[in-house]
C-alpha cells in the first residue's frame, strides 16, 4: 500500500494564496514525492514514501485551518478520468487527420492532375485511417450498442455514412474515377467529436451545479475575527469560526452550544415545527432555523460534512429521466433515422438504375450525413440538465427531469393550509372592543407568564400599539397558568384571567380567547394563523395562468374559509382527515399538484400527479414527494410552473427546428444541391446552433417571472 497516490478534499481553499501557502508548508516535510493541489476544487493528490507522512501533513494542514478528508476514488471516477483522456486523444487524432487531408485535397481541388492527384488522394486516404480507426471508435461503439438493443441511434446513419463514404471513395480512387470524399469524412469525424466533447462538459457542469445546497452561498452571517465581527457569506465560513446567527436565520453549520440555550425550528430534520430547546453543550444542527433573538456558537462542520448534508448526499441522485414527451421525441428520432436510411437506399438504387454512379454515391452520402437528427440528440439532454440546474437555484429539490413535463400538464393545485399557505403562527385578527392602556398592561403582564402560542400572539398584537410597558412585580401581581385552560392572576383585589372562550358562547371556539376581570368579560380576541407573505401573490399568479387552486385542510371550516377569502380561493375543503384528502385528490384524478407538509399529507402527496412537500424531515420528504421546497419559499411555485412550461416549449421548438431542418436538407441533398463536404460542415453546425439556442433559452431572463 506504500507509495500510493492518495486524494484528499481540503476545505477552505478559497484563493490561490492559501494554496501556495500549503504548497510551501508541504516542502518542510521530507518524503513527499508528489503534491498536486487543484485550486478550483480543493482536491489534493498526494504521494509520499509512507502513510505516516500523509497523515502528518494533513494534520498539519488542519491546524492551519484546512481540514481534509481522504476521498476514495471510485472505479467510476477513475473510469471517467480515463475516458476524458481518451476523448482528448481521439479529438487530437481527428483534428490532425482532418487538417492534413485538407492540405492534400486543396491541392487536388486547385488543379493537381495525373500522378500528383493520385498521390495526394492516396495521402488523404493514409491520413484518414487513424481518424477513422481510432477516433471513429466513438461512433462504432455507439452503433454496436444500439444494434444490440435492436434500435437505430444517431450513430447509425453516421456509421453508415463513414463506411459507405470510405469504401466508395477507395473504389473510385482505385478505379481512377471521380467522387473521392476522404476530406468530408475526416471533417465530419472531427466536428462531431468536438460537438460531443463540449456537450458532455456542459452537461457534467450543469448536473454538478444542480447539487443540493441547504444553505445558499449568498446567505450571510457575522463572524468573529481579530478585527471584530464582520459579515461573511455562507460560502466563506470555515470550521472553528465563531458565528452569530440572528432570529429567523438558518443555522449554517453543525456545532455545539456554549453556555446559552436557544429555541430552534428543527422541522427540516425532524418534521416537528414546535420550537425545540437546545440547551448548553448540546449539538446544534445546520439547516435548523433560529427562533430565539440571537445565537453565538462555534461551527464544527459545514456543507457536506453536516448531518443534513450527509443525508442529502446519500439520498439524492439526480437523474435525467425520460418523460413521455422525451421518449416520444426519442422514438420520433429513431423512426426518422430509419426513414433516412431507407430513403438513402432508395435514392442510391434509383441513381444506380439510371446509370448515374457518381450521383448515386454523392447524393446518398450527403443525405446520410446531413439528415442525421443530431440536434435532437444534443438539444434535449442539454435543456433538461440546464432545467435541473435552474430548479436548484429556485431552492427546489427536483430529483428527475421528467418532472418538468408533469408540471406543465397540471390543471388543479391543492394547497394544504397550515404551514403551507400560512406560517403556522397565530395572529390576532379580531378584537371585540378597544382596551384602555391600563387593561393592556394587565393583559401583557398576564400573558408574559405563558409560553402558549395564543399568549405569544396576544403579546405580539398588544406590543404593536402600546408604547411604554409598565412592569408589575411578582408580588403585587401574582400569576399562574393552568395548562389547557388559561392564565389567572390577581391585582389590586381583582381576579383577572385570559382563557379559551366558552364553547356554548360561540360555535367555533378553537381560536377565540376571552379576557376577564372578576368574571366580567372585558374583551374577546379572535386569532388566526397568519398567511405567508408570498401566498397571495403566488395564488394570484397561478390564477393568471389558468390553474385552479383549492385548499385542503384539516382545520375548522371558519378558519379555512377565512384563509380562502384572503387569498381569493373560493374552492376549499375543511375538516378533512388525511384519508379524505386522498379521496379528494383521487376524485380529481388526472393532472393535479398537491402542495403540503410531508407528514400529515404524505398519503395525498403520494397519490397526486405532482407532489410538492415543504415541511417535514427532509429524508422522508424526498421519499414521498417529487419536489421538495426548501426554506418554505412558496413564491417559487409559480416560478417552477414558468420554468416547466418554458422547458416544454423549448423542447417543442427544438424538435420542430431539427425535424424541419433535416427534412429540407434531405430533399436538397437528394436533388444534388448539397455536396458531401458541405453536408459534413452543415451537420455539426446545426448541432452547435441547437446547443447555443438551448443555452440562450434557458437563461434566467428568458423564463423567470418578475414577482
Amino acid at each position, binding site marked *: 500500500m506504500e507509495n500510493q*497516490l492518495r486524494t484528499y478534499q481540503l476545505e477552505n481553499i478559497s484563493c490561490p494564496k492559501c*494554496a501556495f501557502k500549503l504548497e510551501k508548508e508541504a516542502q518542510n516535510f521530507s518524503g513527499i514525492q*508528489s503534491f498536486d*493541489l*487543484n*485550486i*478550483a476544487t480543493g482536491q489534493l493528490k498526494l504521494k509520499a514514501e509512507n502513510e505516516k507522512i500523509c497523515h502528518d501533513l494533513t494534520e498539519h494542514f488542519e491546524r492551519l485551518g484546512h481540514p481534509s478528508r481522504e476521498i476514495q476514488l471510485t472505479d467510476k471516477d477513475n473510469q471517467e*478520468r480515463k475516458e476524458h483522456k481518451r476523448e482528448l486523444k481521439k479529438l*487530437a487524432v481527428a483534428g*490532425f487527420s482532418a487538417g492534413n487531408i485538407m492540405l492534400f485535397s486543396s491541392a487536388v481541388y486547385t488543379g493537381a492532375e495525373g500522378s500528383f492527384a493520385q498521390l495526394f488522394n492516396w495521402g488523404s486516404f493514409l491520413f484518414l485511417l487513424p481518424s477513422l480507426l481510432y477516433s471513429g471508435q466513438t461512433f462504432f461503439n455507439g452503433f454496436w450498442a444500439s444494434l444490440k438493443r435492436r434500435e437505430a441511434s444517431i450513430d447509425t446513419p453516421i456509421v453508415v455514412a463513414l463506411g459507405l463514404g470510405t469504401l466508395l471513395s477507395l473504389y473510385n480512387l482505385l478505379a481512377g474515377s471521380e467522387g473521392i470524399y476522404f476530406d468530408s469524412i475526416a471533417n465530419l469525424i472531427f466536428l462531431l467529436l468536438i460537438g460531443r466533447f463540449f456537450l458532455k462538459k456542459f452537461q457534467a457542469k450543469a448536473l454538478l451545479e444542480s447539487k443540493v445546497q441547504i444553505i445558499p452561498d449568498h446567505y450571510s452571517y457575522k463572524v468573529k475575527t481579530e478585527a471584530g465581527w464582520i459579515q461573511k457569506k455562507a460560502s466563506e465560513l470555515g470550521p472553528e469560526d465563531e458565528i452569530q446567527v440572528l432570529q429567523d436565520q438558518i443555522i449554517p453549520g453543525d456545532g455545539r452550544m456554549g453556555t446559552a440555550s436557544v429555541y430552534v425550528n428543527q422541522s427540516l430534520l425532524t418534521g416537528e415545527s414546535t420550537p425545540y430547546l437546545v440547551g448548553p453543550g448540546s449539538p446544534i444542527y445546520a439547516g435548523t432555523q433560529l427562533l430565539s433573538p440571537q445565537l453565538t456558537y462555534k461551527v464544527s462542520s459545514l456543507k457536506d460534512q453536516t448531518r443534513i448534508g450527509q443525508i442529502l448526499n446519500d439520498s439524492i441522485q439526480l437523474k435525467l429521466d425520460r418523460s413521455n414527451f422525451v421518449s416520444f421525441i426519442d422514438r420520433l428520432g429513431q423512426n426518422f433515422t430509419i426513414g433516412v436510411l431507407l430513403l438513402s437506399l432508395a435514392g442510391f438504387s434509383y441513381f444506380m438504375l439510371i446509370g448515374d454512379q457518381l450521383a448515386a454515391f454523392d447524393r446518398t452520402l450527403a443525405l446520410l450525413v446531413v439528415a442525421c437528427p443530431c440536434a435532437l440528440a444534443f438539444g434535449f439532454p442539454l435543456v433538461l440538465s440546464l432545467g435541473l440546474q435552474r430548479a436548484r437555484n429556485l431552492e427546489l429539490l427536483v430529483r428527475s427531469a421528467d418532472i418538468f413535463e408533469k408540471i406543465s400538464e397540471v390543471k388543479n393545485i391543492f394547497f394544504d393550509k397550515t404551514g403551507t399557505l400560512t406560517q403556522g403562527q397565530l395572529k390576532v385578527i379580531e378584537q371585540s372592543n378597544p382596551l384602555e392602556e391600563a387593561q393592556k398592561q394587565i393583559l401583557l403582564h398576564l400573558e408574559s407568564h405563558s409560553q402558549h402560542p395564543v399568549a405569544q400572539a396576544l403579546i405580539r398584537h398588544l406590543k404593536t400599539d402600546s408604547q411604554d410597558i409598565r412592569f408589575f412585580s411578582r408580588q403585587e401581581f401574582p400569576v399562574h397558568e393552568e395548562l389547557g385552560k388559561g392564565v389567572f392572576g390577581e391585582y389590586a383585589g381583582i381576579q383577572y384571567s385570559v382563557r379559551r372562550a366558552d364553547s356554548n358562547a360561540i360555535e367555533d371556539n378553537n381560536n377565540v380567547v376571552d379576557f376577564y376581570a372578576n368574571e366580567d368579560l372585558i374583551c374577546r380576541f379572535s386569532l388566526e394563523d397568519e398567511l405567508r407573505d408570498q401566498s397571495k401573490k403566488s395564488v394570484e399568479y397561478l390564477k393568471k395562468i389558468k390553474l385552479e387552486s383549492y385548499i385542503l385542510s384539516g382545520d375548522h371550516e371558519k378558519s379555512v374559509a377565512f384563509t380562502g377569502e384572503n387569498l381569493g380561493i373560493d374552492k376549499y375543503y375543511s375538516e378533512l382527515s388525511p384519508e379524505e384528502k386522498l379521496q379528494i385528490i383521487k376524485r380529481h384524478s388526472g393532472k393535479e399538484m398537491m402542495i403540503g407538509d410531508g407528514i400529515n399529507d404524505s398519503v395525498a402527496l403520494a397519490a397526486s400527479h405532482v407532489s410538492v412537500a415543504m415541511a417535514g424531515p427532509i429524508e422522508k420528504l424526498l421519499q414521498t414527494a417529487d419536489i421538495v421546497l426548501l426554506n418554505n419559499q412558496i413564491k417559487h411555485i409559480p416560478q417552477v410552473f414558468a420554468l416547466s412550461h418554458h422547458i416544454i416549449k423549448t423542447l417543442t421548438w427544438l424538435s420542430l427546428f431539427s425535424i424541419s431542418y433535416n427534412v429540407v436538407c434531405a430533399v436538397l441533398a437528394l436533388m444534388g444541391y448539397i455536396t458531401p463536404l458541405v453536408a459534413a460542415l452543415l451537420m455539426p453546425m446545426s448541432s452547435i446552433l441547437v446547443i447555443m439556442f438551448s443555452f440562450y433559452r434557458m437563461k434566467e431572463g428568458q423564463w423567470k417571472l418578475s414577482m
Partner: protein
Amino acid sequence: MEIIYVMLALSVILAGSFIYAFFWAADHNQFSDLYSPKWRILNDEEDEILIDDGEENGR
C-alpha cells in the same frame, strides 16, 4: 518535383511527432487541471515549488 516525396515523408513524421507529444501530455495529466497553473505563475515567492510528476492513481 521529386522533392515533394521528401516533403510528404517529412510532413508525416512532423505530424506524427506532434501527435506523440500530445498523447504524452494527456497521459501525464497535463490537461487534468486547467485552472490552478495560471495562478501559479502569479506567485511571487521565490521558493521552488514541488512539481507534480503526474503519475496516475495506482500506477
